[in-house]
């Protein structure tokens, strides 16, 4: 925060309040429905309850220490982690500001990012994970993985000092979620009967409903990351929209060519890929750069998904790593390219070349992947040996809705 605080802007505050609502909409009900529709009918509620519970757990932890560790000054340790002055927001005055908006709002806006990231991850654990394990995973992962990486990139940590460009979370959210999903899926193991038995989505309309909300909410995710209602926010929303459109069409085209038919699920998956990929770039590129990024995203994420399933036979059940992980990497790197003023971008900071920026971007991806991969592996191992990661085979075939929650999704 600058030494002298600018006056509070009601316009910027109005937009951030809205953006916070939009990002929450992405998780609840957006992502919950998107995921819930993709699983078999006997497991739909398990995904819904996980998204709600993760949001609850992460919210309380964010208030307790998460926000402070990510966004307050860590003194000597500041390059790696923040401090505890703002634990429980006790250090925060009711009228404190972050830039031109209330700090309470900034904390709340960032909370919604911390909540959706682990919720994205659990898509890889679908249809076999124990509910208690999900709760513990979400709590531990947010504190040990999300918070430090958010601090490195956005909280004034070492990557920020190196000038990494991650406007709204290509590294912090998508690379992070993708790597955790991949490591998690490997430690957890595949669903019984994968890949032979049919595990067709039980309700694609539910998935489409969630997909639409994700697109809408993403305006707040990326546009809100400008922390103001200004031209940067406007351009970010335009870029976000172009990334989504291009991603959806690219995936559609790839499917059409490969399988002879474009599918609804394919188009919305391409849209998500486009959105995830444009995220780090949204505030730095122009609309044409965004189209280019979206096209690459739709095309590469499509092939990454095929590869993981068909070749590697890894059961990342809802394709989190090939969509968000691959997309996050691609987007973070391409940000270094399309930020060039020559390509309609906002340009680099002084004395930085495209090559230099690309190096920093790659370093950011690598550092995030390394830390996230290692810590996620550790957390999963610990949980497996303590309370166990998977439900029993009987429970898995009965379905998590009845086995873990005592309910059925649909009756009569």
């Amino acid at each position, binding site marked *: 925060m600058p030494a002298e605080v600018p006056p509070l802007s009601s316009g910027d505050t109005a937009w951030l309040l809205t953006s916070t609502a939009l990002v929450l909409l992405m998780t609840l009900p957006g992502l919950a429905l998107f995921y819930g529709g993709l699983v078999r009918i006997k497991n739909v509620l398990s995904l819904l309850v996980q998204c709600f519970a993760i949001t609850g757990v992460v919210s309380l932890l964010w208030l307790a220490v998460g926000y402070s560790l990510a966004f307050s000054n860590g003194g000597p340790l500041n390059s790696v982690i923040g401090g505890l002055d703002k634990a429980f927001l006790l250090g925060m005055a009711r009228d404190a500001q972050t830039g031109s908006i209330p700090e309470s709002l900034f904390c709340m806006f960032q909370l919604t990012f911390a909540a959706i990231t682990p919720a994205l991850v659990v898509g890889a654990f679908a249809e076999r994970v124990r509910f208690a394990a999900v709760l513990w995973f979400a709590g531990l992962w947010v504190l040990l993985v999300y918070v430090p990486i958010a601090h490195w990139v956005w909280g004034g940590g070492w990557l920020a000092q190196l000038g990494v460009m991650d406007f709204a979370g290509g590294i912090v959210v998508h690379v992070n979620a993708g790597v955790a999903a991949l490591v998690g899926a490997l430690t957890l193991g595949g669903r019984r009967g994968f890949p032979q038995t*049919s595990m067709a*989505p039980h309700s694609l309309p539910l998935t489409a409903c969630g997909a639409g909300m994700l697109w809408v909410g993403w305006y707040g995710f990326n546009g809100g990351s400008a922390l103001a209602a200004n031209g940067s926010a406007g351009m970010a929303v335009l870029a976000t929209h172009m990334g989504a459109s291009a991603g959806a069409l690219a995936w559609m085209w790839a499917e059409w060519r490969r399988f002879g038919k474009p*599918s609804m699920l*394919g188009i919305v*998956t391409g849209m998500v890929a486009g959105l995830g990929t444009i995220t780090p770039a949204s505030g730095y590129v122009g609309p044409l750069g965004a189209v280019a990024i979206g096209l690459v995203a739709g095309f590469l994420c499509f092939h990454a998904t095929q590869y993981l*399933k*068909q070749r590697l036979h890894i059961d990342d059940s809802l394709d989190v790593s090939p969509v968000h992980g691959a997309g996050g990497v691609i987007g973070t790197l391409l940000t270094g390219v399309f930020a060039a003023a020559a390509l309609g971008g906002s340009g680099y900071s002084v004395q930085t070349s495209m090559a230099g920026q690309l190096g920093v971007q790659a370093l950011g991806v690598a550092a995030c992947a390394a830390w996230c991969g290692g810590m996620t592996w550790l957390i999963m191992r610990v949980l497996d040996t303590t309370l166990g990661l998977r439900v029993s085979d009987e429970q898995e075939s009965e379905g998590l809705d009845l086995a873990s929650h005592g309910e059925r999704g649909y009756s009569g």
Partner: protein
Amino acid sequence: MKLVTAIIKPFKLDDVRAALSEIGVSGMTVTEVKGFGRQRGHTELYRGAEYVVDFVPKTRIEVAVRTELVDQCVESIVKAAKTGKVGDGKIFITNIDRVIRIRTGETDNSAL
């Protein structure tokens, strides 16, 4: 009395019902079923995961009729349900010992 059980293509149900009521058979019980046979199913693709669905939706019609009526009944079902394409289905005729109408307690032919 006989029970005539026909497995037909779902979109033929209305035609079959019409044909049967023409010969005075208005009561029947219908079930949605899955059929396996010569007719092949279809393939679905979800993010590249390919699932071969080899059953075909069919409709199962049960009609209890007076024995004298069986041939007529079969005839009109065949006429109405036939498309000539694989998957038109089958008719099974089985014997019924007794029929009871729950409402009145009437039995056998008078219960139909």
